[in-house]
Structure formats: C-alpha cells, structure tokens
C-alpha cells in the first residue's frame, strides 16, 4: 500500500528531476508563459550567452503594456512603453520563442490565453513571471509565479529549484446565493484567513461548491489565491475540466486525448491524505463583497460598514486600518455603499473571461438605460473580445455607453497608461486594491463583475439586482 497522497503531492512527485542535500527539488517545467515585462530575463540570458533551452514549451504574448485602444505599438504615445513593446518583439524573435503578437487574434492576458488555447493542461507544471499564475491551478496544473531571475533560470534550464511547500485544504460546500460569485467567495476567504493566511502553502479547493463552479469561476478563485499569500491554488480536474479542454487548439487530440483524460482522472487527492491545514467555508450564507481598504483582506459585504480600528487584533493592524481609511477617504463606521464613485473597470486576469462579460452584460441589460459612471471594459483576450462581439454582448455594452476596449491588463495595474487620476475612486473587477495600484493616489474597491455592472448603471456602489436585499 502506498501512502495516500494529495493532488499537490502527485503533481510535485511527477516533476522532480533530482533533489539537493537540503531537500529542495529541481522541478521540470512543462509550460512557461512569457509576457512583455520579461525584458530583464532575456537580458540576463544575453549576458550569459545562453539560448532558451526548450522554446517549444514556451508561449509569449504582450499584455501588461498592451495598448487597449489599438493593436499597434506605433500608436502608443509614451516612448518608454513603446520601447518595452518593441523590445518584447525583438526578444521573442531573437530567442525563437513562440509568440501570439499584439495583432494576433489569439493575443490576451497570459492567464486568460493559457486555458483558452489549451496550453494549460491538468497535471502540468506551469510558471510565469507574474504572481497571478496561480490562476492555472483551476485546471489542475501546479502553477506558480516567479521573479525575473527565475524566469531566466527556467528559460535556460526548463527547471526551477523549489522548496516543497505545505498544503492547505479549503473545503467549500453549499450553493452560492443569487448575485454571489466566485469573486465574492475569494474575497470572503481572504478576509477570513488574511493576506498572509496561506504563505508557504499550496491551497487545494474542494467541496460541492467548487465542483459546481465553471472553469472561468475556478480561474477567478485560483487567481485570487495569491492574495492570501499562497504559492499556488489548485482544483482537481473533473468532467467540467475535460469538457472545457476538449478541442482547445493545444489540447491533445484523438488517441492522445483519451490517454491524457485517463491520466487526468487519477489527479485527485486520495482519501485520508494529509493536509497541513484545513479551512471550511459555507457558501450558502455568503454575500456580495467589496474591499474598503488597501489590502484584499480588507473586504466586507456590500451591505456592511467600514470597520473600527478598535476591532483590530493588534496595534499594527489598527494602524494599518487607519492608514487605509485615510488613503481611501473613508471614516470608521461609514456604510460602504455611500461612497462616491468616479469610474468602473471590468477586466484583468481575475474577471475578464467571456462568462464574466456575459454576467456584466446581463446586469446592464436588466437595469436598462445608460451607465451613470465612466465604465471601461477590457476583455481578457482578443478571443473573448471577438466572441463577445459575435454573441451581441459587446453591443449591449456599447449601447449602454461603456468604453469597449481591446484586450490587456489595462487598468488593473496601469502599466500601459490606462490609469486613474489622484483621489479618484474606481470600482474594479481586478485583484489588487493596493495604494496607487491603478495610478498614483487612486482608490480601488474590488468587486465581482455583476457588482461592477450594477454600480456602473446605478451610479453608486450596488449589489447585483439578483442578490438578496439589493435595490
């Protein structure tokens, strides 16, 4: 009898090339996503005179610096951004890295195109120089973000040295109430365990709620896992996963597909396998959530009030809360729904997939009329954009006065110039509300796409009409 193993252990064990005396493992990497912020890594290879070890396992696309008003770097006014985009083209060409260029109909945010193209597969190890690489765990891949030096290391060796992380199981059971989405679930979990709650851990999500989530929703949940400090988020592949991947461009075909699915069915945590920590969440009582502060853990139900620093468990936390309130222009005890909003952003690797846009469009159509706040939608990929246009979603956005843009990271991080002004307040479907994240001195409140759409239409922070007590 072999020891019962977690899904994580199965993935890890299948990729260990060798182990060092101190216990670190050299892991083989099956998939490497590369974006336009990777120039430090290519410079490093150049310095060392090294080629990319296995370009056939890499896929590059511009997203962080991608303009969302055109598909040409030449139209970008800022010469520094233009230089980054040009350098990206030079780097992928020089190192013969497969690329979906800015004008390619398959371009998009790395964490959207990976699953969409079938590049991300169950049972793989996947890395990218971006913390939100945790997203790909939604398909049962062991996926984690790495820094620029490590990107160079993986490019040069197709491997990474890693210390075996601990494991955490987050078991979620019950039905999500109407108007409550994976984003609300993720924000609730982070508010409960804290932004450092899963440091050093790979988190596996399980339970009836998780089984019922679509791949898009699982992507949102695993994407946000990094905001709890985790190394990675992980969901065992199941029929939903196989149905999603079938016929994706880079997914296995014919006989290989059947062999792959047969293997993927073994990728689940054995009964009685040990987790270092287990957390249980009941989905039935969840509500639409919003962040009030400058850390994703500072999240409350939309019907809630900004907390009092007196509720903090330490002086450090109380000070953090005071700073966050000051930065966000809020006072303790204020109902969060009373804040004045300047703008709405729907996009980012957290919530920009077709399903997210469908939900937002449905809310917009349900309320009717025009948006009352400037609203920007940047689809997660050019494929998402094209499909949204084909099924009429884009028309709903455009008719309501929404700015319908091209795909990229856009206002989640503002690196392409899509930014907020100082003191401006944005309701955003992205994943980070850090001070200055969307532009210097700008204020970000994180929500689900449904809440963002309701807010855009009603002109104030509002729960989706389907939610209990909304209106």
């Amino acid at each position, binding site marked *: 009898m072999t020891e019962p193993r977690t899904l994580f252990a199965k993935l890890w064990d*299948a*990729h260990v*090339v*060798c182990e*060092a005396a*101190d216990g*670190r493992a*050299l892991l*083989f990497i099956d998939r490497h996503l590369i974006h336009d912020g990777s120039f*430090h890594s290519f*410079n490093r290879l150049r310095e*060392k005179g090294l080629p990319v070890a296995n370009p*056939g*396992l*890499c896929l590059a696309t511009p997203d962080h610096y991608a303009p969302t008003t055109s598909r040409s770097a030449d139209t970008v006014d800022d010469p*520094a951004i233009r230089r*980054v985009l040009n350098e990206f083209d030079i780097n992928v*060409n020089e190192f013969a890295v*497969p690329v979906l260029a800015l004008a390619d109909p398959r371009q998009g945010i790395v964490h959207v195109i990976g699953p969409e193209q079938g*590049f991300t*597969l169950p*049972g793989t190890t996947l890395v990218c120089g*971006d*913390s939100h690489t945790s997203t790909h765990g939604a398909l049962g891949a062991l996926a984690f973000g*790495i*820094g*620029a*030096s*490590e990107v160079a*290391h993986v490019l*040069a*060796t*197709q*491997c990474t*040295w890693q*210390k075996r992380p601990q494991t955490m199981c987050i078991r979620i059971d019950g039905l999500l109430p109407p108007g409550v989405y994976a984003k609300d679930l993720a924000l609730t979990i982070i508010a409960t365990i804290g*932004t*450092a709650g899963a*440091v050093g851990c790979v988190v596996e999500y399980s339970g009836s709620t998780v089984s019922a989530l679509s791949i898009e929703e699982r992507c949102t949940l695993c994407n946000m896992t990094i*905001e709890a*400090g985790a190394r990675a988020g992980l969901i065992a592949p199941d029929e939903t996963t196989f149905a999603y991947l079938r016929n994706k*461009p880079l997914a296995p075909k014919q006989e*290989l597909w059947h*062999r*792959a699915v047969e*293997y993927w069915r073994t990728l689940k945590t054995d009964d009685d396998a040990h987790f270092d920590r287990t957390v249980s969440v009941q989905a039935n009582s969840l509500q639409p959530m919003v962040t009030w502060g400058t*850390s994703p*853990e500072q999240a409350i139900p939309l019907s809630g009030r900004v907390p009092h620093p007196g509720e903090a468990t330490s002086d*450090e936390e109380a*000070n*953090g809360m005071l700073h966050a309130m000051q930065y966000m222009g809020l006072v303790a005890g204020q109902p969060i729904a009373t804040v004045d909003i300047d703008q709405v952003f729907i996009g980012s690797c957290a919530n920009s997939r077709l399903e997210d846009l469908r939900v937002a469009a449905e809310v917009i159509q349900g309320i009717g009329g025009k948006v009352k706040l400037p609203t920007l939608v940047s689809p997660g990929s050019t494929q998402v954009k094209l499909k949204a246009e084909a099924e009429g979603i884009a028309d709903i956005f455009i008719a309501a006065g929404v700015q319908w843009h091209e795909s990229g990271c856009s206002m989640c*991080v*503002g*690196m392409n110039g899509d930014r907020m002004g100082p003191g401006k307040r944005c309701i955003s479907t992205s994943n*980070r509300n*850090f*001070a*200055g*994240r969307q532009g*210097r001195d700008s204020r970000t409140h994180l929500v689900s796409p449904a809440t963002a759409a309701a807010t855009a239409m009603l002109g104030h922070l509002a729960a989706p009409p389907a939610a209990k007590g909304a209106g």
Partner: protein
Amino acid sequence: MAEPFTTLRSRAVRLAAGNIDTDQIVPARFMRTPRSEGYGNFLFHDLRFDAEGKPIVDFPLNGADAPDAHILIAGKNFGCGSSREAAVYALFDFGIRCVIAPSFSDNFKANCAKNGLLPVSLPEAELDRLLEDGVVSDLIEVDLRRQTVKRNGREAGFVIDAFAKESLLTGLDEIDMTLRHHSEIARFQEQHFARYPWLDIKLQAPTNSSF
C-alpha cells in the same frame, strides 16, 4: 552573479507598517526602466515624494541618516502582492542590503537571495527586544555565516534556508549550477514525455501557422 553578502554593520531605517506590498516598494509605472539606469530613486516612490516630486519630510527614508542605512526594518508579510523582482532592485539600488521583518511573502524572499539582498525573519517579540532601547542611530550588525543580528549588546539568531544562505555568501550563479545537471534534465525530459506524450507540443516560432 550577485554581490556576495557576509557581514553588515549599519544603521537601519524602520517602516512599522505590516503587509507592505511590492506596489508600494516600486510603483508599476517605473518597471519599464532598464536596470542599468538604477531603481534606487523608485524605492517607495509615492510614499517618499509628493505629486510634485518633492521629498515628504516625515517619511523615514527621507531622514538625514537614511542614505547611510543599509538595513530596513519592516512589519509582517513584507513584499506581499506582485512577484515583481523590481522591488528587490529598488531596495538594492537604494543601498539596502538586508531587510529585517517578522515575515516575508514567498516570492519576495525568493527574489532576494538571487540579488544579494538578505531577508532576515525575526519573530516580533525578538525584534522588539532588539530595538527596545538605545537610539535610532545605533548600529546593527548582521552576520550571515553565524545567522545573528546584534544591536547594543543584544543578539538574536535567525533561520535561513541553507541554499539561500549559500547563494548569498558566495553570490553564486544558480543557472550555471543547474546547467551542471544538464544530462539529468535531458534524461528526465525524455522519460517524462514518453510517459505523457501530449505534453511535448513543440510549438514553433512564430506561432502564426503552427496552431
């Protein structure tokens, strides 16, 4: 090859806040800059400088002693958020060689050792004991080989991964070290792809015609 780290004797600057994220350490808009231009001016940029670019006087890194400080003391979960290595570049280029905090994010800690920056995790109580009296300008001594931090005659030990320690002490190049495993990696890849043949997708550059 990073600059080796052995011992350090320096003043420290302290940022009491916890959960300092890498967007604070270096705002994203500066990350387009080539490293050769230096990232020191970007360190905590929006906390250090006002909208007109004037230094904010009460921010600790603008203190008269700050340029001589090579140690930063911070709150728990330092470097959370984005995995941007630019956060480490900014600290290093400003002159910081060691960050002492109760805890760090995984990504930040991993990025440190590759760039000659020592992350020292000290439990809050230990850190308080170390800092509890004396004057701000008291020098702190960090000895990586012995894994100790000393100030005013008080000493605290810290734990660090053997590999991170070795990397910092020698400034060794991890890529060169891994490439010594070249044949093992090649053998692994062959067996791995034989077992899971759908993994070897052999994408071609450019991809326009290949899938």
